[in-house]
Structure formats: structure tokens, C-alpha cells
């Protein structure tokens, strides 16, 4: 990693330099003040930097060298599915016929794009076992909220306005309860049992005529398959609720089990996870939603349909929840996901899941002697260790995570799910080789030994990064969210 501090782009700026190339204006130059009233013209220039093109490239190259991506090294961030991002996807998304088309062009002029979207939907329908898919949601959380809005519309259409509660397991992602809140629901938490699965007894207690839905990811956030999924679905359906599948963990079950066959009524997928749309430093993602037959009328508008005159958008959807995003979703990410699915084929996707699950179980068994394994059974694509043994030695999971940085790894997800003490959630994915997994396990084993013998090495980690642990309290107490020139007081 690049050790030297990189100045801010504003600190590299020098008046008079340019990094752009615009044609000279070829229409008559008119004084702006003759077109715009003076109160509409800004009096202070926006202080954007001024750099030459090479200096800009060097700046961002320096920043990139202070950043770790999947291409830099292993990234076993649990529940995020940090798999390899195929390069061919990037090329395809940049074809002018995909990148430089306008969303409001006549449908006749974008049949290729519509055809790709339609075929992607068909593939996702088959993979999930649902009846219809919308590509409109921009990300996973957006898909969750979209599906919950549809569930709400479904119940309201049946005159059931009293269904105000959404049930969420205590092990759920934080977005689940947040999405339910934004969709206007109240949240009820259901406990996990001693096996890390939904506690059926508790579930029976919390359901009722006010139940709108249960949100569940399967395998759950512990990486364990909810074996009682059919009973769970039956309990929810029995009281008239809907069962919602959080597709964050689909990488574990492709070709092995389909949400539609497990009794789920709707599902969102994270195309940036399972289907390799890159994570981009936090986005853009894509969060399509699939639904069963009875929820199709409530899909966001417009709905893409295939007719004898080609592909068209259907806006005449009286029961639709409306638009959830301008236009038709993050098309560029959907193009990448489609390219991936077509690169893998059905047998490829099956191998993806099998290899992801083998990789996770292999690591779990290699690390089990050194770390507490709270749920000792086969996992799916990820598993959760507890740092409770190390904690007794004064070494926290946070320290273990920071020590991993010294070995060149991105740490696992930490302190999640909330029902595991000092949790370390590890997801290797199928694109990592055995050699990589072994090297990571060796590092984890060494850290476990260090915790016993030389805990301060772990507690004071990281030792090799461009920067040491940052003062997060200071950042929150005295927020500095933008650059202010030293000689200026903040406006």
C-alpha cells in the first residue's frame, strides 16, 4: 500500500491549470446578463480544483493505492459476497449501445436493451422460482422496501388494513427493520433458538391477524439453512401473512433450493453480490424483486412486457405501487449481471453454489480448533465464529480484524449477527482458491496464538497500514464533512 499521505485534490490545485477540453462555442456569444437576470447568476465561484490531466490521474492513482479491493486481495466480508468481478462484464456494460442510450427514447429504438432486461428477468424467475421479476430497485435495501410496499398494497387491496406488523428475526440485517419502518410497518422481533434458527414457538406467539409479513434470509445470517422453512411459511400463511426472502444469501442455494419452492411470496436479489455487478466502493448495486402470481398486479410501474410488436413498457397497471425509482433500475449493473449469468450457464451456477459452500465449510473446520464455533453444524456459504475465547485474554474481535490487515486481508464482517458474542462472519465465495483460503486460515491461527502469547501485537494492530486506528469519536463529535481552505472560516 501507498504509505505517504495523499493531499486533498483541493490542496493540489493551482489557479490557471485546466484538465478539460471543450470545443469553442460556435453560436453567437451573448453576455449572460442579457439572458439571465442578475439575481440568478452566482456571485461566488464554486471552488472546484484546477489540475492538469496527468496530475488528476496521479492523484486518483495514489488514492487507489490506498484502497483494498477484491482484485487487491482476499475480502471475506460476510453477507457481502465479495467474489471476483469478471472483466468481460465491464466491457459489455461500456458498449455504446448500452452505455449511451437514453431512458426516454422510443421503445422501438432500444429493443436490444429491452430484450436483455426481459431475458435477465426470465433467468431470475427461473433461479428464484417466482412468477415475475421487476428490475427497478437500485439496491438490496431498496428491493426490500419495494417488496414490503407491494405486500402492503396486497393486504390493502383485500381490505386488510389492520396488517401493520412485520416480523423480523433477531439475526436479520439492519436494513430489514429499517425498510419495514420506511414502508410504514411496525416491527416485531422473533428470537433465534439454540440452533441459531428461527424459534418456532416464539414465532407462533408473535403472529396474528395483524401480521403483514415475515422477512427472512435463508440461509440465515449465521450461514445456516432454516430447516423448518416450510413450517415457518405455513405459520405465516396460516394467519394470512406473506413471507419475504432477503436474497443477500442466494449464493448459497442456487440450483439447490429456490425461494419460490420454499414458500416465499416475494424475494429481492442483490445483483452486485451473487451476480457479480461490482460493489464499486459501496455501490451502485441492483436489487430486483421477484413475486408470486398473486402479487403481480402490485409490481412497480412500468412493467416490461413482450408483445408481437416487440418489447414494451406497460404503464396501465391500476394496482401498481407506482414507481420506486426513475426509469427502469440500474441498467448498467443489470447488464453486468446478465453477462455473468450467461457466462456461467445452469451448470456453472450450480458449481458456484457448491464451491462456495465447500470453501466455507473447509475454512470453518480448519479454524474450529482455534476459535469458538457457536453453531457446530454444516454451514452454507458463510459461517460465524465468536471471539469469546480471545476476549477472555483481553483481545477483542475488533483487534483480530485489525491484525488481519497486517496480513493483507480485508477482515470478515464483525460484531454481526447481533446474537453472537464478538462475532466474526466469514464468507470466502467460490472464486477463491484453496491456497488463498489456507493462507488466510494460517493467519487466523497465528493471530489466535498471538492472542495467547503476545496479545499486545494484536491489540495494537494494525502495524503495516498507511494509517493506524482512526479516532472515530472525534469524527462524530466534531464533524468535518468537507474541505475548508485554511485561510477561510467556514461559510
Amino acid at each position, binding site marked *: 500500500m501507498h504509505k505517504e*499521505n495523499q493531499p486533498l485534490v483541493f490542496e493540489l490545485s493551482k489557479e490557471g491549470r485546466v484538465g478539460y477540453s471543450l470545443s469553442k462555442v460556435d453560436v453567437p456569444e451573448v453576455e*449572460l446578463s442579457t439572458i439571465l437576470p442578475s439575481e*440568478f447568476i452566482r456571485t461566488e465561484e464554486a471552488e472546484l480544483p484546477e489540475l492538469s490531466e496527468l496530475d488528476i490521474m496521479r492523484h486518483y492513482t495514489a*488514492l487507489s493505492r490506498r484502497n483494498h479491493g477484491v482484485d487487491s486481495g482476499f475480502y471475506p466480508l460476510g453477507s457481502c459476497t465479495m467474489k471476483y468481478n469478471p472483466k468481460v462484464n465491464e466491457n459489455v456494460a461500456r458498449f455504446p449501445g448500452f452505455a449511451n442510450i437514453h431512458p426516454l427514447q422510443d421503445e422501438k429504438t432500444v429493443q436490444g436493451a429491452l430484450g436483455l432486461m426481459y431475458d435477465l428477468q426470465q*433467468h431470475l424467475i427461473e433461479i428464484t422460482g417466482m412468477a415475475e421479476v421487476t428490475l427497478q430497485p437500485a439496491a438490496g435495501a*431498496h428491493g426490500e422496501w419495494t417488496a414490503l410496499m407491494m405486500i402492503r398494497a396486497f393486504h390493502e387491496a383485500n381490505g386488510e388494513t389492520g396488517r401493520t406488523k412485520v416480523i423480523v428475526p433477531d439475526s436479520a440485517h439492519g436494513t430489514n427493520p429499517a425498510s419495514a419502518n420506511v414502508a410504514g410497518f411496525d416491527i416485531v422481533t422473533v428470537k433465534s433458538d439454540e440452533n441459531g434458527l428461527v424459534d418456532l414457538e416464539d414465532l407462533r406467539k408473535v403472529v396474528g391477524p395483524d401480521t403483514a409479513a415475515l422477512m427472512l434470509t435463508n440461509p440465515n445470517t449465521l450461514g445456516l439453512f432454516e430447516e423448518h422453512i416450510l413450517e415457518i411459511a405455513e405459520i405465516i400463511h396460516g394467519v394470512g401473512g406473506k413471507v419475504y426472502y432477503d436474497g443477500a444469501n442466494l449464493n448459497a442455494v442456487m440450483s439447490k433450493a429456490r425461494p419460490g*419452492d420454499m414458500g416465499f411470496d416475494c424475494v429481492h436479489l442483490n445483483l452486485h453480490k451473487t451476480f457479480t455487478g461490482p460493489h464499486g466502493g459501496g455501490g451502485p448495486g441492483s436489487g430486483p424483486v421477484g413475486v408470486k402470481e398473486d402479487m403481480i398486479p402490485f409490481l412497480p410501474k412500468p412493467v416490461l412486457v413482450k408483445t408481437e410488436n416487440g418489447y414494451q413498457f406497460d404503464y396501465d397497471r391500476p394496482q401498481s405501487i407506482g414507481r420506486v425509482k426513475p426509469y427502469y433500475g440500474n441498467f448498467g449493473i443489470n447488464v453486468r449481471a446478465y453477462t455473468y449469468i450467461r457466462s*456461467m450457464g445452469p451448470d456453472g451456477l450450480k458449481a458456484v453454489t457448491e464451491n462456495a459452500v465447500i470453501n466455507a*465449510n473447509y475454512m470453518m473446520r480448519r479454524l474450529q480448533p482455534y476459535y469458538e464455533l457457536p453453531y457446530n453444524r454444516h454451514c452454507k456459504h458463510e459461517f460465524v465464529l465468536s471471539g469469546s475465547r480471545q476476549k477472555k485474554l483481553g483481545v477483542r474481535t475488533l483487534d483480530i480484524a485489525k491484525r488481519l490487515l497486517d496480513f493483507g486481508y480485508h477482515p470478515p464482517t464483525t460484531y454481526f449477527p447481533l446474537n453472537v458474542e464478538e462475532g466474526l462472519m466469514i464468507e470466502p465465495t467460490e472464486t477463491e482458491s484453496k491456497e488463498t483460503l489456507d493462507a488466510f486460515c494460517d493467519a487466523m491461527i497465528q493471530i489466535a496464538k498471538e492472542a495467547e502469547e503476545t496479545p499486545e501485537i494484536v491489540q495494537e494492530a494494525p502495524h503495516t497500514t498507511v*494509517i493506524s486506528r482512526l479516532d472515530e469519536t472525534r469524527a462524530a463529535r466534531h464533524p468535518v464533512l468537507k474541505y475548508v481552505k485554511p485561510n477561510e472560516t467556514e461559510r
Partner: protein
Amino acid sequence: MKHRYLPMTEQDQQEMLKVIGVSSVDELFEDIPEKVRFKGELNLKPAKSESALLKELAQLAKQNANSDEYVSFLGAGVYDHYKPVIVDHVISRSEFYTAYTPYQPEISQGELQAIFEFQTMIAELTGMDLANSSMYDGGTALAEAGMLAAGQTRRKKILVSDAVHPIALDVVKTYAYGQSIEVVNVPLKDGVTDLDALNNLIDNDTAAVMVQYPNFYGRIENVQAISDAIHAVKGISIVSANPLALAILTPPGKMDADITVGDAQPFGIPEAFGGPHCGYFATTKKLMRKVPGRLVGETVDEDGRRGYVLTLQAREQHIRREKATSNICSNQALNALAASVAMTALGKKGVQEMAKQNILKTHYAKEAFENAGFEVPFKGPHFNEIVVKVEGSVQALNDALFEKNIIGGFDLGKVSPELENHILIAVTEQRTKEEIDALVQEMGALQHA
């Protein structure tokens, strides 16, 4: 099976299964109940080799008319702008695009610093105190602004100008329904928000007013008057602004806007059939702790070195869970990076020059249309869009223009029956005088044919 994305060999698999203590892969899936286990093969298209797939998808792409090959006058929220070539080179560095949200700041300083720079540039352009790290797009950013305003004021009514993008309005309505917020439309006068009507609609239950700047018809709203009107009842002034226009126009922050949102697509982000683009969210210090999404803040490390972290996370879904007022998690970070690179390449002078060219060329087009006998309703200043009245259907006109290699404007009849036979024409810096002249001439010829 052998595949270039799957490194596991047969031998690896045998060794690994042995360590796991199972004799076959299937044993690892035995926890899936027999009844729901999927048997057989998914009915998907078979895998294609890299070159065969590239060929097939290139063919598919060619079925789309793109703005490299056609001369586009279509805008309405998404624009064909100059994209500095350097942008794609920066965002193609895989240290950026294969990383995730910078949860581990020690190995994510590059991303965090780039986003801190993005926040600064957006704050500069909008004139607001601060900006977040990005939203999905301008439409959802506007919807989130509405939810913030309703939460902050504990009021359940939002007034939205009829000159806000109709598609963004649709998104606002969907979100508002979820939160039981009432959305009331404010009519227009001469293509801008009718201030008298607005004042009549504002009452003590009004959480916020939303306007667009420049508005959907290319006109420039009197944001100061609108802010004053809503502030009189202690409501919130929300402006959806094209950040490129703000290089020249008085920024909303100088006109007492409380929240400015929009889409940074004009800065280096391809049209991409409507997404991914890059929403932004800028606001005042007062509302800082209510902002949706990620914020990057400056701090120091143990040795006193300057560094950047995700901050004020107590606002966010992973901490607040069901008490969170926004559920956003993934955002549009890579596109925020793209916009930052474009804003850096254009720089302080380039953004002004580019914005000015939009104004001048649109002004030229307006005069050219008028000189050719077209009616251009909505008198007054424009940014890069104008409304032109045509005879007959816009659809037929656009079909004919397409034959001449021109992607025409947006058919306003689709959003308002009063604007039947009106076309919204966007003229960016990309359009030459020759192309504008050709458009006016073709339209004239078609009209009088």
C-alpha cells in the same frame, strides 16, 4: 466443472471434503428439506465462451440507437454531456470498483478521501453546508428529502411544484404513501411555480415545498421567494437542482434552501438507459444528524495523521434498525467517484464554461425556432431546455426526425394533456450550431410539408 472463475480442482475438492469430514458435496446440502430441494437443472441458457458471448451481446447492443451515432436533443432529466475520457480510466482502477463500503478505514483511505472530496464539491456547487456520499439517483434523493422534512417538522403534507420532473414526482408519491404523507401539487404560471397559488396552499400543516431548479421545462425558479414562503410557517425548503447549472446559477444554499438534492449524471456519468446515475443530498448543519446515507468525516489516527472515516453512523439502519428513518445502505459510490473526477477535470473554470455553453446554445436554439415561425411558450430565462409547440403529434415528428438520424425531444403530451403537441428540446454543449440549425430546419420542413 472447469470454468475460469472457479479455481477449485477435483483434487482440491477431495482434500477439502476430507477436512470437512464428508464424503460428497451433497452431504453439505442435506439440511435442505427433501421437499424443497431443487433437483435437476435450472432451465437457463447454456454458458457461452467469452468471445461468443461478446459477439452476441455486441449484436444486442447494436439494436439500440445510441447518442454516439445519433444526434440527440432528448433530455428531460438525463443528458448527453461531455465526459472527460479520464473519468473511465480512474473508475476502471479495480482498487476502487472491486471494493465495498469502506468499513475498514485503514485499508480504504483512497475511497474515503475521494468521497470526502465529492462531498466538498457538491457542497461548493449547491452552496449548502454539507453533502452526503451519494444517493441512488435524483428521484429517490428527492423522496428521502421529503421524508426527512416530514420527520423533522412532524407534519404530513408536502407541496410539490408541477414543474418538478414528473417521474421524480411519481417516486416521491410512492415513498410518501409508505409514510402516510400527503402530496399536493402546486400549479404553474408561465412555466414556473405560481407563487400566489403556492402561498395559498401553504399552511401550518405543510412540512415542505419541493421545486426543481432549473425546472422540468428548463425555466429558472425564484427559489428565494419559495424558501421565504415555506419558512414563514417553519417548513422546509427542498430544491432539486441540476448541479451543472449551479456552476452559473445562484446556488440554492444562497437562497435559503434547507435541502438541495439532485443527480450528478451531467458530470461524467453515461446515460445508461436511466441508471446507474448518482443522486446527491446536501443540507444545512441544522439537519446534519438527520441526513440519510453515508457521511465521510475527517479525523486523525493514533499518530496524529489526517485520515477519513464513515461518521455519524448513529443515523443509519445498521445501528438504528427499526428506528432508522431511511433504509439506504448501498449507494452509488463508484458514480460519485466518476462525478468527482469529472468535476476535477472540468475544474472551477470548466464547469462554468460548460454550463455557459448550455445556456448560449439553448438561447440560440430558442431564437432559431422563433425565427422559423415556431411558438416557444414559457418566456423568460432557460438553462438547457426549451418547450416548442408543434403542429400534429410529437410522436410522428420524432419518428420522422429519427429517419434523419436525430433523436428528438420529449413528448410533453405524455405528462400533461394541456401540453399535447409540445416538445421539450434539450441543447447541451455537445450540440453544434450546425446540428441545431439542422433540427430547426428539419422540423420546419416536416411541419410545413
